C-alpha cells in the first residue's frame, strides 16, 4: 500500500444517494421476537455474553450456598449429597458455561469490530453455537433443582464416575453439558481462526493486528488441540458407562489415570484458553488508558504464543500425587515453572506501558479492574510457581491452598479483566455508558471481598483442609478462617450486585446499531463510528493504532471513502483479505437472519438431552430433524459466481465467489481437519497408553488372535480406491450448465467404499471372537472403528449432499465449494482409516 493522502482515498465523494440506506436495509436487525433469528455479531455477541454472565451469576449463587455451609464447622445448611452436587456444578458451570463461552462471546462481539469487518465469516455458525449453548446450558444447570446434577467433581475422575459408583443419570448430564460446550467451542474456534486470518481490513498485516486478535487466534488454536482430548475422554467415559467397554476399569486392563491424562491435557490448556483472551483485553485497555502504544508488542505476541505452547506440556502437574516416576515429575515441574516466564513478560510490559503513560495513567473503572487484575493475578501466578514445585504440591495439592491459588488466577486473570471489559467496551454496544461511580463501588467491593475470601484460604489449606468437603470438624483450626472466607464471599457478591444495578440502570443495547461513541480516545478500529453494518466503509490500515495515527480516519470511514462503502451484491458481505499481508482477495457473501440454524440448534440440543434421559426413539427423531435443518441451512450457502466481480474502491475489482484454498470455507474445513487429527492423536495415545499399562490384555495373549491380514488389506484397498475415485471426481466435475453423471457416481462409489472399509474392519474383529467389553485391548481396538465410523458418517453426509447438489445442477467445476468440503475430509478420513488399520493390526503383531 502506498502512502495515500486524504485526497486519494479508495472511494470518492459524494457517495451515490441511497447507498447508506441500502446498507442499513441489508444489515437491518430483525425486530420483535424475530430477533431470535438474528445473526449480526453485535446482536448475538451481546446475547452470548449475557448468557455467559447469567451462568456466572448462577454458579456464583451456588458458591455462596457452599460458603454458607462452610461458614461454621459441622453445619447442615445443605447436606452431603447436595453439597457434592453443588461443587460439581460450581466448577463445571464456571469453567464450561461461563469462562470459555464468555471469552468466545467477546471474540464474536469484539473481533469483527476491531477488524472493521462487517461480521464474522460464518454468522449463522456462531448463532447456532450460541443457541445450542444456551439451551444445553440451561437444561444442564436446571438439573440441580431435581437432584439430578452430577456429583463427581468438575474433573469427573473414573472409577468414581463409572456406573458402578455413580448409577443414575447425574454423571451423564455432566457429559451432556460438556458435549454442548465442545461443539460451541469448536464452532467458535473455526469462526475466530478464519475471522482473524481472513477478514482483517486491507493493510492490517499480522504485525499490525490488535493484541486481542492475536490472543483470540492463539485461543482458537489451543481449542483446536486441547478440546479434542476432552472430546475423546468424554466419549470413552460415556461408552464405558453405557456399554461397559473397560477403558478405565483396572481389573479389565483399563486405567483410571488414562482419564486424568486426557482430561488434564485439555484441562490445563483450558486455564490458559481462559486467561489468554483476558490478557489480550488488558493489553488493549492499558494502552488506551496510558494514551500510548503498548510497549513490547512483539514480545507480548511471542509470550502469548509461548504460553499456548508451554500450556500443553504441563498437564501432569495436576497429577503429581498419583505416584508417577520422579523423572517425569521433574520434567513437568520444570515446564510448569517455565510457563511463568511469558506471564512475567506481559506483566512487565503492562507496567512499562503504564509507566510510559502520556501524562499520568488514567484511573477509570476499567483501569481499576486492570490494576486489580495485576495484583491478584501476580499473586496467583506466584503461588502457581510454588505449586509447580513437586514437594510443595504434594502438601498443598487438593487443599484450600490450591483453591485459593486457582481462584487468584481465574478470578484475577479472567473475571477482573472481564469486568474491565464490561466498563470499557459497554459504550460500543450500549447507548449509554456504565456509571463510573457505581463501577468504582463495584471494583472496591469485589477487590476487597475477593481478597478477604481467598487470601485466608491459603492458610486454611496449609493447615490441612482438603477441597470438596461439605463439613469439617471444629477442633483442627479451620473454623475462623472459613468464617472470614464466607464473609469475603458475600462482600464479593455485593460487588457483583452493584454491577447488576449499574447494568439495569445504564446498559441500553443498541441491537447492532452504533453505541455511545468512544469515551476513552482509544486507537483501535472498534471505536470507529458505525451502525448495524459496523463501519460504513472498511478502512485502509497503516498502523497498529489507526485512530491515533490517521486522525481523519473516523470521518473518512463514516463518509464511505474507504473500501466497500456499499452492498454491491445486494446482500450482506464483507471483505476477505490474504492471511498475512491483508491484501483484498474477494468479497464474501454472507447469509443474513434465518431460522434453519436456530432449529438445528434446538434439535441438536433435543437429541443430546433425550439421549441422556434414555429416550432413544425421540432422540433419533430429533437428530434426524437436526440433520434436515442443517441441510436446509447449508443449501443457500454456495451461491456460485452469479454476482460476477464487483469494485470495492481504488480501482480494485474483486470476485464475489471463490473456491479452493483462497475461500473461507476451505480454511474452515482445514481447521476441522486439524481438530479431527488432534482427536485421532489423542486416541492413538490412549491405545498405546493402555498397552503400556496392561500389555497382557493384548492379542494374542489376552485376547483372540487378530483376524487374518486379508481383512485389513481388503479394507485398506477399499478406502484407497475410494480416495482415488474422489480425486477423479474432482477432475470430472462438469462445466457449468452441462450436467454429467460421472462425478456423482464417483462420489457415491467413494462414500460406499469408505462405508465398506469401516464395516469390514468391525466385522473382521467380530468374527475373530473379540468383543469390546472383554478387556481394555478389545475396547481400544473397537474404539478405532468408532472414530472411523464418525468420520465415515460425516463423509457420507457430505458426499450425499454434494450428489444432491449435483442432481439439481448446483455443482459444477466452478461452483464447487460443497464438493471441496467433501474432497478435503475424504483423504483425511482415508488416512485415518489406513493409520488405524496399521495400528490395530500391525501393532499387536509387532509388540506380541
Amino acid at each position, binding site marked *: 500500500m502506498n502512502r495515500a493522502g486524504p485526497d486519494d482515498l479508495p472511494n470518492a465523494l459524494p457517495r451515490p444517494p441511497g447507498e447508506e440506506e441500502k446498507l442499513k436495509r441489508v444489515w437491518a436487525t430483525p425486530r420483535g421476537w424475530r430477533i431470535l433469528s438474528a445473526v449480526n455479531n453485535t446482536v448475538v455477541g451481546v446475547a452470548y455474553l449475557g448468557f455467559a454472565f447469567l451462568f456466572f451469576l448462577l454458579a456464583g449463587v451456588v458458591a455462596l450456598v457452599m460458603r454458607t455451609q462452610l461458614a461454621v464447622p459441622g453445619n447442615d445448611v445443605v447436606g452431603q449429597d447436595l453439597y457434592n452436587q453443588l461443587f460439581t456444578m460450581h466448577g463445571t458451570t464456571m469453567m464450561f458455561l461461563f469462562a470459555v463461552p464468555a471469552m468466545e462471546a467477546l471474540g464474536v462481539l469484539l473481533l469483527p469490530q476491531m477488524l472493521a469487518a462487517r461480521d464474522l465469516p460464518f454468522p449463522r455458525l456462531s448463532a447456532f453455537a450460541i443457541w445450542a449453548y444456551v439451551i444445553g446450558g440451561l437444561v444442564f444447570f436446571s438439573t440441580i433443582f431435581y437432584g439430578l446434577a452430577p456429583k463427581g467433581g468438575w474433573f469427573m475422575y473414573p472409577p468414581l464416575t463409572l456406573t458402578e459408583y455413580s448409577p443414575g443419570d447425574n454423571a451423564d448430564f455432566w457429559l451432556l453439558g460438556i458435549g454442548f460446550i465442545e461443539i460451541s467451542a469448536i464452532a467458535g474456534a473455526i469462526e475466530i481462526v478464519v475471522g482473524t486470518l481472513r477478514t482483517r481490513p486491507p493493510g492490517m498485516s499480522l504485525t499490525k493486528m490488535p493484541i486481542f486478535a492475536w490472543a483470540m487466534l492463539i485461543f482458537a488454536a489451543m481449542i483446536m488441540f486441547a478440546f479434542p482430548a476432552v472430546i475423546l475422554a468424554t466419549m470413552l467415559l460415556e461408552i464405558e458407562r453405557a456399554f461397559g467397554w473397560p477403558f478405565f476399569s483396572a481389573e479389565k486392563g483399563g486405567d483410571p489415570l488414562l482419564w486424568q491424562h486426557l482430561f488434564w491435557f485439555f484441562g490445563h490448556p483450558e486455564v490458559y484458553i481462559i486467561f489468554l483472551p483476558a490478557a489480550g483485553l488488558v493489553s488493549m485497555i492499558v494502552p488506551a488508558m496510558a494514551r500510548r502504544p503498548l510497549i*513490547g508488542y512483539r514480545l507480548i505476541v511471542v509470550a502469548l504464543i509461548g504460553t499456548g505452547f508451554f500450556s500443553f506440556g504441563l498437564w501432569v502437574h495436576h497429577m503429581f500425587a498419583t505416584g508417577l516416576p520422579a523423572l517425569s515429575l521433574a520434567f513437568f515441574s520444570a515446564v510448569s*515453572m517455565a510457563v511463568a516466564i511469558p506471564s512475567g513478560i506481559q506483566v512487565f510490559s503492562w507496567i512499562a506501558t503504564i509507566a510510559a503513560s502520556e501524562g499520568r495513567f488514567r484511573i477509570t473503572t476499567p483501569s481499576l479492574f486492570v490494576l486489580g487484575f495485576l495484583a491478584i493475578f501476580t499473586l496467583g501466578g506466584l503461588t502457581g510457581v510454588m505449586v509447580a514445585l513437586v514437594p510443595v504440591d504434594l*502438601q498443598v495439592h487438593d487443599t484450600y491452598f490450591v483453591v485459593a491459588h486457582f481462584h487468584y488466577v481465574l478470578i484475577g486473570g479472567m473475571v477482573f479483566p472481564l469486568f474491565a471489559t464490561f466498563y470499557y467496551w459497554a459504550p460500543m454496544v450500549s447507548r449509554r455508558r456504565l456509571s463510573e461511580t457505581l463501577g468504582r463501588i463495584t471494583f472496591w467491593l469485589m477487590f476487597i471481598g475477593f481478597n478477604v475470601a481467598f487470601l485466608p484460604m491459603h*492458610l486454611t489449606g496449609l493447615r*490441612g483442609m482438603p477441597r470438596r468437603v461439605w463439613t*469439617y470438624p471444629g477442633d483442627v*483450626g479451620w473454623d475462623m478462617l472459613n468464617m472470614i472466607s464466607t464473609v469475603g464471599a458475600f462482600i464479593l457478591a455485593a460487588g457483583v450486585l452493584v454491577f447488576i444495578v449499574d447494568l439495569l440502570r445504564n446498559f441500553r443495547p443498541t441491537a447492532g446499531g452504533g453505541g455511545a461513541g468512544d469515551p476513552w480516545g482509544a486507537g483501535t478500529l472498534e471505536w470507529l463510528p458505525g451502525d448495524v453494518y459496523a463501519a460504513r466503509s472498511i478502512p485502509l490500515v497503516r498502523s497498529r493504532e489507526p485512530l491515533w495515527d490517521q486522525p481523519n480516519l473516523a470521518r473518512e470511514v463514516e463518509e464511505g471513502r474507504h473500501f466497500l462503502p456499499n452492498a454491491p451484491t445486494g446482500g450482506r458481505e464483507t471483505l476477505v483479505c490474504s492471511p498475512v499481508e491483508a491484501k483484498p482477495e474477494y468479497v464474501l457473501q454472507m447469509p443474513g437472519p434465518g431460522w434453519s440454524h436456530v432449529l438445528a440448534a434446538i434439535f441438536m440440543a433435543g437429541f443430546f438431552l433425550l439421549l441422556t434421559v434414555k429416550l432413544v426413539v425421540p432422540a433419533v427423531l430429533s437428530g434426524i430433524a437436526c440433520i434436515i435443518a442443517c441441510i436446509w441451512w447449508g443449501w443457500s450457502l454456495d451461491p456460485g459466481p452469479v454476482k460476477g466481480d464487483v469494485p470495492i474502491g481504488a480501482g480494485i475489482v474483486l470476485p464475489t465467489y471463490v473456491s479452493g484454498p483462497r475461500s473461507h470455507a476451505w480454511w474452515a474445513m482445514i481447521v476441522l481437519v486439524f481438530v479431527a487429527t488432534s482427536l485421532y492423536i489423542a486416541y492413538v495415545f490412549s491405545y498405546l497408553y493402555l498397552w503400556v499399562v496392561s500389555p497382557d490384555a493384548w492379542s494374542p495373549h489376552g485376547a483372540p488372535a487378530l483376524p487374518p491380514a486379508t481383512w485389513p488389506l481388503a479394507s485398506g484397498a477399499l478406502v484407497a480406491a475410494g480416495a482415488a475415485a474422489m480425486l477423479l471426481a474432482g477432475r470430472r466435475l462438469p462445466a457449468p450448465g452441462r450436467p454429467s453423471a460421472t462425478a456423482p457416481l464417483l462420489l457415491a462409489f467413494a462414500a460406499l467404499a469408505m462405508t465398506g472399509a469401516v464395516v469390514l474392519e468391525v466385522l473382521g474383529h467380530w468374527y475373530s471372537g473379540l468383543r469390546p467389553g472383554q478387556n481394555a485391548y478389545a475396547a481400544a481396538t473397537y474404539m478405532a472403528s468408532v472414530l472411523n465410523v464418525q468420520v465415515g458418517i460425516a463423509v457420507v453426509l457430505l458426499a450425499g449432499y454434494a450428489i444432491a447438489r449435483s442432481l439439481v445442477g448446483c455443482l459444477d467445476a466452478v461452483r464447487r465449494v460443497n464438493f471441496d468440503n467433501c474432497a478435503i475430509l475424504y483423504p483425511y478420513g482415508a488416512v485415518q482409516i489406513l493409520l488405524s488399520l496399521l495400528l490395530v493390526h500391525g501393532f499387536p503383531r509387532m509388540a506380541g
Partner: protein
Amino acid sequence: MARPARVLACTCSSAMLPLAGCAGIQSALVPKGGEALDIDPLFWTSAGVAMAVMAMVTILVAVALRGPVRWRQVLSREWFLTGGGIVLPIVVLTFLLVYGFLVMQAGATRMSAAGEHVVTVTGKRWWWRVVYRTPEGREVESANELRLPVGRKVMVRLLSDDVIHSFWVPQLAGKLDMIPGRINVLTLEAAEPGISRGQCAEYCGGAHALMAFHVVAMPAAEYDAWLAREAMPARVPASAEEERGAALFTANGCGACHTIAGTRAQGRLGPDLTHVGSRRSIGAATLPNDAAAFARWIAENDHIKPENLMPPYRNLAPDELRALGAFLDLLE
C-alpha cells in the same frame, strides 16, 4: 531460613487471627517427620520468594502509576522489560527448581532406605484398611488408625479397590493417591511421639469429607509391644452386659462384614474390630471412641455419615445398643 520465616508467618497469621494458633494436628505448617520436615523449608523459601516478588511488583506498579517522571522513564525502557520479564524469572525459577529437585532426591533416598517395616493401607469408601506385617511375617489388620514407631522408616503401601483416594498426613508427608490397579509407596518417618490427623485428599464421592484417620507415633519399643498385642485375638467379654453385646453381635449378623479375631465373625467388608476399643475414633475419625458413640453409630450411622455402606440398625432397642457398645468398647 526456614525457622525465622515460620516464626514470622506464625506471627503474621496470629496477628491476623488472634484466636487461631499455629498448632494443628493436621497442619502442614507444623511438620513432625520425614518428608514433611524436608518440604517445610522449601515451602517457606518459595513463599518468601513469592512475597518478595509480589512486593516488588506492587512497588513497580505504584511507581509506574504515580512515581516521578524520571523513574517512570526507566520503567518504560526495553531492558526493563527483558530484565524483569525474562532474566529475573529465569534466575529465580531455576534456583527454586534446583532446590525442589534436591528435596525430591532426598525423598527418593529415604524411600530406598525403607523396606523393613511395611504397612499396607487400602482406601475404602469411606474408611481405611490398615494391615501391619509383624517381624514374624504375620499380617495384622486394623482400620482408620496408623501407628508408627518413632525414628523408623516405614514403607506404606497404598492401594484401593474401589475409587481413587489420596493418603495424606500433613504433619508427616505429602499426599499420595491410592489408585485401583496400582500400588503406590510412601515412606513415613515420625520424628517424635504424638498424635496427628490425616484425611483423604482426593474426592471419592459420598462421604469423602468424613474419611479421616489418626496417626499415633510411639516410641519404637512401645510400638513393638503394641503390635504384638494387636496380633492377639480379641478380649473375651467379662460382664453380663458385654456377654449380651457379644451375643447380639453374632445374632445380628455383624460378622458378615466385620472380623473379630478369635470369634466366628470373619467378615471382610467393613473394618476389623478385633481391637476397635483401643482406637482413637470410630467411623474414620468421625466420632470419638466410647461405648455411647458405638451405640449411636450402630443405630444412626446413616445420619452421622451419610451414604456410608453400613446399614443403620435402628431395630435394636436402647438397652441392646448399650450392650453392643459395651462389648465393642471392651475390645481393646
